[in-house]
């Protein structure tokens, strides 16, 4: 689906991009790899896996291609959506890896672009675009689960600074991040959703420590992060003090779309069709085959829906609460797909190593992180269907 014909107007742009990629994308970066191991996360402690990875990042930074749709002033290339699509198509055509992935690009960037002050944008966005500062996200707290508004980590008012105490959980890559964006309780008297602020903190600040969490799928990017009397300047609040919930809500919607997208990317790492064709019984077992046919139909319909929502967004119609649907359907479907891959691979899939086992287990978290499937369904029920209660 979705071969986009961006029309004659963009023919020149496409030619330029193609030429630039031909000249600048190193052969090693054209292997189409998309797994955890091949990602360039950037940040001050980043070690490039090879010179080509470093070259590729630097050349993209120069053109603004790490964040193609961001304004040039903040390190982007200022592309519109059609141009962005063309760039992605051309990269895909030669199997080019993404030059840089980060929570800064996915999450904080959009939040700063929408809620940050001009000063904050100029200060924080370019280092993200250049892959110099790696960010992690501090939302969840132990025992709070989906109830993000129940934030307990406290920021006490000290005049120009906050004094932060508490604990976050599920902070991805906190042990390798330079900075963290977090939700902190800045007013204990206010009602639940009020009294929360969206705060940026340097992970080297005295009083911040991290501890990795091991998952059922093995080592994980997740950590627990502890704050003990951490001093934070008030200039590092994004948006209005005590209105951090607005920023968080915006980012949640954004995250849901990302996860549902990511879900697909993961699944398509090895297409269901290929898995079944290779499988011992993928052809002969009607249960497996029938389920795979269903999953394939559904995946295609989900892809079309993502495309539709993008078209809507471009037409100025926000996706809004429907992002809950993308999150829910995307992650549930991805779980199903990996179950089918495991079944198709049979005994081959039952060991650690070069097998789908880790991915399979990892998908189980997709429908929990960023808001559980149950929370998504409740959002749809109340906000879209207007059912009572």
């Amino acid at each position, binding site marked *: *689906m979705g071969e986009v014909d961006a029309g004659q107007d963009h023919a020149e742009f496409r030619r330029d991009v193609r030429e630039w990629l031909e000249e600048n994308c190193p052969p090693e970066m054209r292997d189409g790899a998309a797994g955890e191991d091949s990602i360039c996360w950037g940040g001050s402690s980043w070690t490039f896996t090879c010179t080509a990875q470093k070259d590729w990042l630097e050349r993209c930074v120069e053109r603004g291609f790490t964040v193609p749709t961001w304004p040039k002033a903040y390190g982007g290339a200022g592309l519109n959506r059609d141009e962005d699509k063309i760039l992605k198509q051309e990269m895909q055509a030669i199997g080019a890896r993404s030059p840089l992935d980060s929570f800064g690009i996915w999450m904080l960037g959009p939040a700063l672009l929408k809620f940050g002050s001009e000063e904050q944008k100029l200060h924080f966005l370019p280092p993200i675009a250049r892959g110099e500062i790696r960010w992690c996200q501090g939302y969840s707290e132990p025992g709070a689960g989906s109830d993000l508004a129940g934030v307990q980590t406290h920021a006490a008012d000290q005049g120009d600074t906050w004094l932060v105490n508490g604990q976050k959980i599920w902070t991805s890559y906190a042990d390798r991040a330079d900075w963290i964006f977090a939700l902190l309780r800045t007013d204990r008297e206010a009602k639940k959703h009020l009294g929360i602020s969206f705060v940026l903190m340097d992970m080297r600040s005295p009083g911040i420590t991290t501890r990795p969490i091991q998952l059922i799928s093995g080592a994980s990017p997740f950590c627990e992060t502890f704050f003990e009397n951490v001093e934070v300047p008030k200039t590092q609040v994004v948006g209005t003090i005590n209105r951090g919930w607005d920023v968080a809500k915006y980012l949640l919607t954004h995250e849901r779309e990302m996860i549902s997208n990511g879900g697909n990317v993961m699944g398509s790492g090895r*297409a269901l069709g290929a898995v079944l064709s290779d499988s011992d019984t993928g052809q002969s077992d009607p249960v497996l085959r029938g389920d795979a046919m269903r999953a*394939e139909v559904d995946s295609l319909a989900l892809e079309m829906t993502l495309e539709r929502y993008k078209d809507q967004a*471009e037409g100025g119609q926000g996706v809004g609460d429907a992002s809950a649907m993308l999150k829910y359907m995307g992650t549930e479907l991805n779980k199903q797909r990996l179950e089918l891959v495991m079944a198709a691979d049979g005994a081959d899939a039952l060991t650690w190593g070069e097998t789908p086992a880790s991915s399979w287990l990892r998908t189980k978290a997709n429908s929990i992180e960023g808001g559980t499937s*149950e929370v998504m369904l409740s959002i749809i029920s109340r906000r879209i269907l207007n*059912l009572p*209660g």
Partner: protein
Amino acid sequence: MAKLIQTEEETLLSEAAHGFLSKSAPVSRLREMRDAGKRNDPELWQEMAAAGWAGVLVPETAEGSDMGHAAAHVLARELGRNLTVSPFLSTAVMAATLLRQFSDEATIAKLKQIAEGAITYAMAIDENAKFSQERVELTAEKRGNGYILNGKKRFVVDGCEADRILVLANSNEGLCLFDLTNKSKGMTQETLAMIDSRDAADLIFDDVEVSGESLLGEVGAGYELLKPALEAGQAALAAETTGLAEAAFALTTDYLKERKQFGITIGSFQALQHRAAHLWCEIELTHSAVLNAGRILDESPEQATLAVSVAKARATDTAQKSVQEGVQMHGGIGMTDAFDMGFYMKRARVAAEWLGDYGYHAGQVAQLRGF
């Protein structure tokens, strides 16, 4: 590709269709027709023709409105919402798509009659209980300038009331398509007592003599000619079925908001909420698949097979889920004939089978996706 959102024209068309059908041909009209033993509504079809619906896929050279497949889907969806009885799919979508592959004068004249609402068509393809355009045993034997047809066609939608029939037959030299009057000598229509109360028949061909002119295109070209018409029909049926799913779902959510049980509005029960929310997600995906099929049929119809099968498979499944949840969530009242949900359920079942069921289309998808 054009965007997967309704254009302004499409929105206007949809609103117009909604206004017209909810007044002239809502579900209560189907009920009346069923109770009166009527299977078609020629006056209604005249009004639709006057609005340009019958000619939605008839070229302007034949005085059609030629609005395209996506527009046809907008109309089909509204027909589905209202369970409106009409020869729209057989005539305006399938026959028109088939015939517009020719530009001879005789065909142009027929297309013009279609657009005017002057003639209706039925497609005679199936010969078995399950859809398959491959197993054709009805024979066309060359005799003189013409052919003799012998055999039986099953589940011909609109087969009693249509003026003309497009028949897929097997000749010595491959599959052929014939365009016949439904009153040809030797043809018998066996009316089927369909659960959706619509027109369908088994057609028996007993030494039916047809002229050479009734053969469409070349001998042996039957399937190539039929393919675009079938895919257009499958996609439009998907659109109709999606409309049906949406309407049944709307009945259900309305009921959830108003009905009380044990003193509490049942829509506040979380188990029902989550099931309703899930169903909404299913409908949303299906709606995208239908939009996508419409765009591809309009822009690159020769590449539409995958998109069409995804749409038909999804719509079939979603409609069935919608009516099943609809009956269950309504409880006893959902089971009564006095309530409309049963009409939706029965039409969903017939629409599921017509032009290929879920398994058929999911199989097409699997094949095209390499497994």
